[in-house]
C-alpha cells in the first residue's frame, strides 16, 4: 500500500440505505493504467461502488481520492470534470440523438461554447465544434461505428448501443473509466467486439479501468487484479489466478459444503 503510482484510493467506504448496508468498510487501490475487476454474486454491491465513484451515491463513511482529490461529497458533474467516465449496466444513452451527438456530449466539458455563442455559431463556436468532432471521428473509427454516425441511438441494436456508450465515455478523455457489465446480455460475437475494443483502449490510451462483470472468462482474461465482494464486504483482492482458487470466493459463489 501507499505506492507512488496509486491513481485511485478508496478507504473504508460504508454506504447504507436505511437499515440496509450496501457497502461496508470497502478499501482498495487502482493504479495508473490498471484493469481492475470487481466481481461478486448478485446484490454484492458492485454497482454501488461505481455509483459512489462517480458521486451518484454519497457514502456515509470513508474517503475516495482520485489523483489526490477527494470525490466524496461532490456532484456527478464534478466527478466528470475530475476525469471519471462510466458506462451503465442498462445503458445511459440519449436515444433521440444520433451517434455523433452522443459522442459529442462526451466532449461537453472539454468545450466552452455557451448559449449566446451557440446561437450565433460564429468563429470560436464553429471551430470548437469542428475540432471536437474530429476527436469523435477517431473514436467512431476505433469502435467501428462508421455506418451508424447519423442514426438515432435508440434505433440501433443493443450491442452497437453498448459500443456507443463506451465511445461516449472515451470521448470524455477520462483518467478513470468505469465499465458496468459491458457485455451483459450480449452474444459471443458482440462480447468479442467489446473485449477487442477494451484491449485496444488499454494498448492505445493506457487508461485505468474498473470493470464490473459477471462473465468470468472475460474478467479472468482481461483483469490485472480482481476484487471479490460478498454482501457489501471485500472478501479478496488479488490476481485473477489467485482469486479463482481462494476458498472464501468459492464459498461465496457456490455456498459452503455442510
Amino acid at each position, binding site marked *: 500500500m501507499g505506492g507512488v503510482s496509486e491513481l485511485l484510493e478508496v478507504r473504508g467506504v460504508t454506504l447504507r440505505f436505511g437499515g440496509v448496508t450496501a457497502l461496508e468498510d470497502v478499501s482498495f487501490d487502482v493504479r495508473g493504467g490498471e484493469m481492475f475487476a470487481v466481481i461478486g454474486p448478485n446484490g454484492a454491491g458492485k454497482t454501488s461502488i461505481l455509483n459512489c465513484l*462517480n458521486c*451518484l451515491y454519497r457514502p456515509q463513511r470513508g474517503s475516495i481520492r482520485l489523483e489526490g482529490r477527494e470525490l466524496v461529497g461532490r*456532484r*456527478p*458533474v464534478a*466527478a*466528470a*470534470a475530475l476525469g471519471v*467516465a*462510466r458506462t*451503465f449496466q442498462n445503458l*445511459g*444513452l*440519449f*436515444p*433521440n*440523438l444520433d451517434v455523433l*451527438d452522443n459522442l*459529442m*456530449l*462526451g466532449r*461537453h*466539458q472539454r*468545450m*466552452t*461554447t*455557451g*448559449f449566446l*455563442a*451557440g*446561437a*450565433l*455559431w460564429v468563429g470560436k*463556436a*464553429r471551430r*470548437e*465544434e*469542428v475540432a471536437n*468532432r*474530429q476527436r469523435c*471521428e477517431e473514436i467512431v473509427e476505433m469502435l467501428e461505428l462508421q455506418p451508424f454516425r*447519423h442514426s438515432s441511438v435508440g434505433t440501433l441494436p443493443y450491442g452497437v448501443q453498448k459500443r456507443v456508450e463506451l465511445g*461516449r465515455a472515451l470521448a*470524455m478523455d477520462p483518467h478513470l473509466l468505469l465499465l458496468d457489465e459491458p457485455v451483459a446480455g450480449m452474444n459471443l460475437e458482440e462480447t468479442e467486439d467489446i473485449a477487442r475494443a477494451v484491449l485496444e483502449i488499454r494498448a492505445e490510451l493506457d487508461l485505468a479501468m474498473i470493470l464490473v462483470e459477471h462473465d468470468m472468462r472475460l474478467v479472468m482474461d482481461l483483469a490485472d487484479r480482481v476484487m471479490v465482494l460478498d454482501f457489501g464486504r471485500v472478501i479478496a483482492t488479488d490476481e485473477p489466478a489467485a482469486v479463482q482458487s481462494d476458498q472464501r470466493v468459492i464459498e461465496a459463489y457456490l455456498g459452503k459444503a455442510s
Partner: protein
Amino acid sequence: MAIALPRLANREMARSQSDALRLFPTRWSRNATVGLIVAVAAFPLAVTSEFWLSVLLFVGATAIGALGLNLLTGFTGQVSLGHAFFLGVGAYTACYLGNPPEGAPAGRGLPMVVWLPAAAIVPALVGLVVGPAALRLKGNYLAVVSLGLVFLGAHVFKEWESVTGGSDGTSVLPSLAVGPVDFAGIGGLTKNQSLFYLVWAIVAISALACKNLVRSRPGRAMQAVRDRDVAAEVVGVSLARYKLGAFSISSGLAGLSGALYAVVLTYVEPGTWSLPLSIQFVAMVIVGGIGTTMGGILGALFIGALPELVKHYSASIPFVARTATEEGLSLPQLNQILFGLSIVLFLVLEPRGLAALWLRAKAYFKAWPFSY
C-alpha cells in the same frame, strides 16, 4: 491553387468536418431556403388582402413564441403552461418603454432599438428569477406551477395600472422606426405590409438562432437533459444550468413574441395573457413537431390560420351558426373542437407533428424511385 469542388449531392458525401456541419449542406437545400425567403418576401406585395396579411402577422408574432416554447418543451423536456405570462411581460415592457409619453398610461417614447430588445431581455431576466423555484420540479408538477405564473401575472397586470392601464388596458403605439426605415409604412406600403417584413424578419432570425443553438454544445446538453437526466449529469452536463438557460431563452422569445403580438393588436388588456393563450402555444408545439425548429413555425401557421380559415369558409360548413340567434355551433366552439381534435390526432398518429410529415416526404424522395 485551390481546386473548386462541386457542391455536395447529400450529407453522406461530406469530405470534411466543416462540410458536414453546413446548415444547408446541398445545393438543393440552399436553393430551397433562398426560394422560401423570396416567396415570403414577395407575399405582402402579391397578396394585398388586409385579412390575410393580418392573419400572417399574428402567425409570425406567435411563431417566435412557439420557437421559444419548443426550446423549453421540445428540446429540454420541460412542460410549461406559463408562456402567456412571459408574452405579457414582453408586451408591457414594450408598451412602457415605447409608447408616447402623452398617452394614458404614459410611456417613455423610446425608439424601437431600445424597446424591442428590452421586450426580450426583461422577460428573460424574470425567467431567470422564477426559474430556479419552478425547475426543481419535473413533468406535470412543473406544468402546474408554471400555470400559477399565468394567474399571478393576471393579478399583477390588472393592478399595476401605471404600466398596464389596469383592466381598461392600454393601446400599443410605439415608434416602429429603425433609422430611416419606418415599419409603420415603408415607402408606399400599407402598415400591415410593412409590419409583415419586420415580424417575419424577426421570425427568420429567431429560427436561425434556435437552429444554431440546438446543433451546438448548449443545445445538445438540453437534449441530453430531456432524454436522460442521470446520464447527462454523469457526462458532466449541469441540469440546473441548462434547464434554467432554456427557460430563460424561452421566456425571452416569448417576450419578443408578446411585444410584436401587441403591436399587431394595437391594444392589449390583462385578459389577453390568459391560460387559453398558453394552451395555444402548447398546441403549436405539439402540432408543429416537438423538438424540431421548423415545428414551431409550422405549428403557429396551423393553429393561427385554422380559426381564420374556419371563419372565412363558415358559410359552407354545416351545423355552424352564423348569427347569434341561429341554432348550431358557434365559431369559437367549433374552433375549440378542431384544436382539441388536432392535438389528439397528432399525438396519436404523428407525435412528431407536421415537421415529421415533411421529413418523411423528404426521406421518401431521397431514395426515389426506389421504395426502400
